């Protein structure tokens, strides 16, 4: 390894196991335990990506999920490549391939970098301002904007990985396994509570685990040593389940949380083969303890985005945890004591720390004293005004800060360096708390938002609750746990804790430069290239709400959701407008906390498991006979049965002719069937259908139309009276569940006095419908003992019979206008029934037909299909179905609405038939209908709802809804299509056999 910037003695890196990986096509080596970020840094690779707008070179900035810059594309396989992955979270394995995003041709030479030079012309709202005019140019603009937008590449092939979902119920969920989370989990589990501890990182222990300073002691032990003991102890607890590499994505109401458990992303391709990649945990917890810690804030100064500028805590973690040297010549820039910890730790490892620049006037912390004693030069009251180095920082300029912190004085000092660790204090990670509906309050002392009002049984402990010193963390955590878990005696009660006393930080949201702000680039949102300048511009242009400023400047809208810079954006808005932070509020934190892949969200519900398919008992027969299927609701219905490579058109023409000339058979099992019983069943039907039911004889069938209370057609179907108090209702295939729900609703809530029982029996029966002039002969062969004469078994009646030993219900009803029978048998005899029918019909060339032919045949008769010819805005009157609306009944669902001022308008869209001037021309369903071609834009009168070529009539027929159509019989209208116009005439919607002679043929 040419570059191996390592220090010895990291407990968390296995230096004996070398891992090789590729980044941007080049081979590198790291050690087991490295993240992609730590391994790259060890290879002295800082430049890993380009920024979104200006294509500025960007480097690794953090060591965790808050990373804004180092987002990479992992994998080059078109099925499982993943964009926008944080290099700081990717654990390296043999064979890992990752590439930079948002750069072309390469991260080192990126053509888009020219945007950086153009940046004065790319202010906030650039797109809104520039691409508005002329309006007709939008199509051209859009092409270019879409090509330059977006980060990374989506996979182009279906994901081959396996994902999983799991439900977990627990008494206590602890989120985050830093020192406070570990203590909380131990206390909960030891008090007989079923506890789950989740940690997004690979190991538990947070930042205390690699704390090597002697200045932090618990019970006279170094804090890390003490914590390691605790970790060993909790691993033995039965009541406690610990999951690492598990990131909580969402915290919903009622303590319902979603977490992503990463199972195999850290394994090599051969090890992960066949294993579940990620698991979405759906957790319901009685109590939740949020211990998500805090995120270090950067500082906002001119050119604060160069590779090599990192968070001070990240520089420390890379050295202490990964044993990686981020720079050989380090400078820290801070407004608080934390950077001193990092500087001291580096210095003790023999890594050069040249200087600490502190914007405060002084600090009395023992850490500062230690740094001074180690000989580190401290510049008090100074600020960095500029940085130099295009692809990596090599120099900084600093100046003395004025007393008010708003300007600089004195002369410029230049210092060279190769790494600048910045620390702006700490921001409690309150994202999950606010997602759950929690309300924040602002603490002026150290300028942080902390949890205030909890919406569910939860508490926040540790630094996410605003406790930053070891002593505060432990003491406050114990106090709140005692109350929250209702425990009297708590261990750790008398812990002796030593930590350096912190000196207050000095908070300046936007640090001044020696240049005017217009000439500087102080980045607030690194990923989206939003600078303090953009925020100020937005405010000058009149934006006030923080939500509006966010959207206009895109601050906080990247894949990192602005975890680093959002606080500064708020601070700059508050400072500029003179509003208090507490009054300004925050932008909304929305799930997921870190991006989730779609695969994890859908889990196993992919392909055929995406949605349930319902199949009829005859499904195998349809499959064996090469049926094409269509989806109707969740049902797979036979659509048509092509023979000898027929097209759908040819098949449907053949099937339609056969059904009218001899015999056809349809699988009607999918129709909804509701069994209705009870002494008030007739009265109930009277109330839910528009027509009268009381006088329907036993053994008779009747067609019913059901409305919504608004008078619009909702469903239709035939209902049969089986006995005095027993009916069976059929509904449309797609509407069955909703109809049952609606009927139950009325029964339970409006008419509880009615004695009626409803049972869904859709799946209990299989139904074959035989139609055509030979249907009677076929049924006679099937059931010779049944008298099929019109006297004994007239149209719209019902008989119980047997085919062999199989009991069946036969209804003589028709949706095609032909003489036809519907035979219902217990579902498991369905296929056998179908085969019997085919056998009996063989001599009559019985032809199976699918839904397409059914649609054609009923259209010839002008029968509507609810949902095709209606769309929730059609009344029965609009459908020319006045005959089915009872005038005598006092009330039924929707009756009152039929004479509202709107429903009695004569110019409503009404159902009519259409014939084309050229009988061979088939209209397109959905085509618009106009009457006047001279006036533009055309006034649209309605549209075509059903259209077919009728083989029986040998001409094209269509149903349509046309405004005022009922009074337009014979009128010629036009259907403008692309490049031509079709002439049509309005006719009666019944095209065939108006006298219903065929029903009794």
């Amino acid at each position, binding site marked *: 390894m040419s570059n191996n910037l390592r220090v010895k003695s990291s407990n968390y890196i296995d230096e004996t196991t070398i891992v090789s990986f590729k980044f941007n096509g080049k081979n590198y080596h790291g050690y087991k335990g490295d993240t992609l970020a730590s391994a790259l840094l060890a290879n002295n690779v800082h430049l890993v990506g380009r920024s979104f707008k200006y294509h500025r070179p960007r480097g690794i900035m953090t060591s965790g999920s808050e990373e804004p810059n180092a987002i990479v594309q992992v994998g080059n396989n078109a099925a499982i490549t993943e964009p926008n992955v944080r290099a700081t979270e990717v654990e390296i394995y043999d064979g890992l391939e990752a590439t930079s995003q948002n750069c072309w041709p390469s991260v080192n030479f990126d053509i888009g970098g020219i945007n950086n030079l153009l940046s004065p012309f790319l202010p906030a709202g650039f797109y809104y301002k520039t691409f508005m005019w002329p309006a007709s140019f939008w199509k051209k603009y859009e092409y270019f904007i879409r090509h330059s937008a977006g980060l990374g590449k989506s996979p182009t092939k279906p994901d081959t990985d396996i994902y999983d979902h799991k439900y977990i119920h627990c008494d206590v969920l602890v989120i985050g396994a830093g020192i406070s989370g570990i203590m909380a989990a131990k206390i909960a589990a030891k008090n007989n509570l079923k506890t789950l501890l989740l940690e997004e990182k690979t190991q538990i222990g947070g930042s205390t685990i690699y704390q090597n300073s002697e200045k932090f002691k618990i019970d006279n032990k170094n804090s890390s040593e003490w914590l390691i003991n605790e970790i060993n102890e909790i691993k033995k607890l039965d009541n406690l389940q610990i999951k690492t590499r598990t990131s909580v994505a969402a915290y*919903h*109401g*009622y303590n*319902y949380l979603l977490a992503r458990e990463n199972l195999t992303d850290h394994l090599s391709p051969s090890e992960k083969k066949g294993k579940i990649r990620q698991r979405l945990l759906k957790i*319901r917890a009685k109590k939740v303890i949020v211990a998500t810690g805090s995120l270090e804030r950067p500082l906002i100064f001119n050119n604060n985005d160069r590779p090599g500028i990192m968070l001070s805590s990240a520089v420390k973690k890379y050295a202490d945890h990964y044993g990686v040297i981020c720079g050989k010549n380090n400078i820290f820039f801070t407004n608080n004591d934390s950077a001193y910890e990092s500087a001291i730790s580096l210095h003790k490892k023999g890594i050069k720390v040249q200087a600490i620049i502190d914007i405060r006037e002084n600090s009395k912390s023992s850490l500062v004293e230690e740094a001074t004693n180690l000989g580190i030069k401290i510049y008090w009251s100074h600020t960095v005004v500029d940085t130099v180095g295009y692809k990596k920082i090599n120099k900084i300029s600093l100046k003395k800060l004025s007393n008010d912190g708003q300007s600089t004085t004195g002369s410029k000092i230049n210092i060279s360096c190769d790494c600048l660790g910045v620390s702006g204090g700490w921001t409690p990670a309150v994202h999950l708390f606010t997602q759950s*509906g929690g309300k924040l309050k602002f603490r002026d002392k150290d300028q942080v938002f902390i949890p205030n009002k909890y*919406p569910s049984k939860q508490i926040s402990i540790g630094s996410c609750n605003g406790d930053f010193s070891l002593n505060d963390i432990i003491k406050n955590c114990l106090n709140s746990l005692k109350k929250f878990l209702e425990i009297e005696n708590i261990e750790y009660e008398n812990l002796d804790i030593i930590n350096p006393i912190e000196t207050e930080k000095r908070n300046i949201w936007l640090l001044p430069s020696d240049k005017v702000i217009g000439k500087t680039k102080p980045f607030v949102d690194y990923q989206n290239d939003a600078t303090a300048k953009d925020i100020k511009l937005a405010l000058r242009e009149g934006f006030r709400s923080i939500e509006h400023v966010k959207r206009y400047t895109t601050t906080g809208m990247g894949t990192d959701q602005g975890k680093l810079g959002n606080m500064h954006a708020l601070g700059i808005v508050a400072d500029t407008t003179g509003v208090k932070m507490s009054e300004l509020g925050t932008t909304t934190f929305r799930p997921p906390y870190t991006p989730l892949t779609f695969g994890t969200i859908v889990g196993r519900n992919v392909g055929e498991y995406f949605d349930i398919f319902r199949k009829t008992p005859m499904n195998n027969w349809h499959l064996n006979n090469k049926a094409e299927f269509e989806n109707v609701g969740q049902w797979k219905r036979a659509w048509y049965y092509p023979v000898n490579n027929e097209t759908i058109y040819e098949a449907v023409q053949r099937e339609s002719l056969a059904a009218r000339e001899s015999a056809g058979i349809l699988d009607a099992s999918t129709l909804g069937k509701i069994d209705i019983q009870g002494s008030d069943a007739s009265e109930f039907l009277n109330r839910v259908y528009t027509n009268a039911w009381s006088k329907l004889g036993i053994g008779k069938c009747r067609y019913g139309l059901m409305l919504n*209370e*608004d008078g619009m057609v909702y469903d239709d179907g035939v209902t049969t009276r089986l006995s005095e108090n027993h009916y069976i209702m059929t509904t449309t295939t797609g509407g069955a569940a909703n109809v049952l*729900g609606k009927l*139950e*609703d009325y029964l*339970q*809530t*409006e008419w*509880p006095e009615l004695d009626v029982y409803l049972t869904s029996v859709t799946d209990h029966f299989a139904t074959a419908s035989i139609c055509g002039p030979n249907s009677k002969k076929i049924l006679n062969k099937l059931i010779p003992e049944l008298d099929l004469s019109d006297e004994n078994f007239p149209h719209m009646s019902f008989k119980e019979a047997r085919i062999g030993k199989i009991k069946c219900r036969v209804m003589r009803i028709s949706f095609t206008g032909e003489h036809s029978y519907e035979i219902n048998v217990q579902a498991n005899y369905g296929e056998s029934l179908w085969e019997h029918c085919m056998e009996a019909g063989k001599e009559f060339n019985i032809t199976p037909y699918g839904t397409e032919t059914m649609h054609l045949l009923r259209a010839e008769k002008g029968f509507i299909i609810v949902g095709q010819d209606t769309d929730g805005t059609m009344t029965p009157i609009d459908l020319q179905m006045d005959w089915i609306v009872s005038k005598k009944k*006092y*009330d039924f669902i929707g*009756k*009152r*609405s039929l004479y*509202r*001022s709107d429903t009695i308008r004569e110019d409503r869209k009404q159902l009519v038939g259409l014939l084309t001037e050229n009988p061979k021309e088939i209209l397109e369903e959905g085509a618009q209908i106009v009457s006047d071609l001279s006036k533009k834009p055309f006034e649209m009168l309605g549209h075509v709802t059903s259209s077919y070529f009728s083989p029986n009539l040998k001409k094209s027929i269509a149903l349509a809804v046309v405004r005022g159509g009922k009074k337009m019989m014979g009128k010629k209208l036009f259907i403008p299509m692309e490049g031509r116009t079709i002439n049509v005439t309005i006719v009666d919607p019944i095209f065939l056999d108006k006298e219903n002679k065929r029903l009794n043929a």
Partner: protein
Amino acid sequence: MFIINCPFCGERDQSEFKAGGEAHIERPKQPTELSDDEWAEYLFMRKNIKGVQFERWNHAHGCRKWFNMVRDTSNDEIKLIYKMGENPPIE
């Protein structure tokens, strides 16, 4: 996702239930005697309060029973659940 205490089945996930809009809007007994405005009031007008609201819910993937719920729509807190036909709490 809330947990709803179905008065017939006990506590279940919200995914088993269907919301049914505002509660205690009785279907007029004699619709034909209502003016267009009165009928429209029943048919279309709903309060949709931010705050405490009376709602109908149905245990659709369970016992299929309808019941009433008092819910604070601003924070999804369920204050009370009671059966159909029972009187709403006064307050």
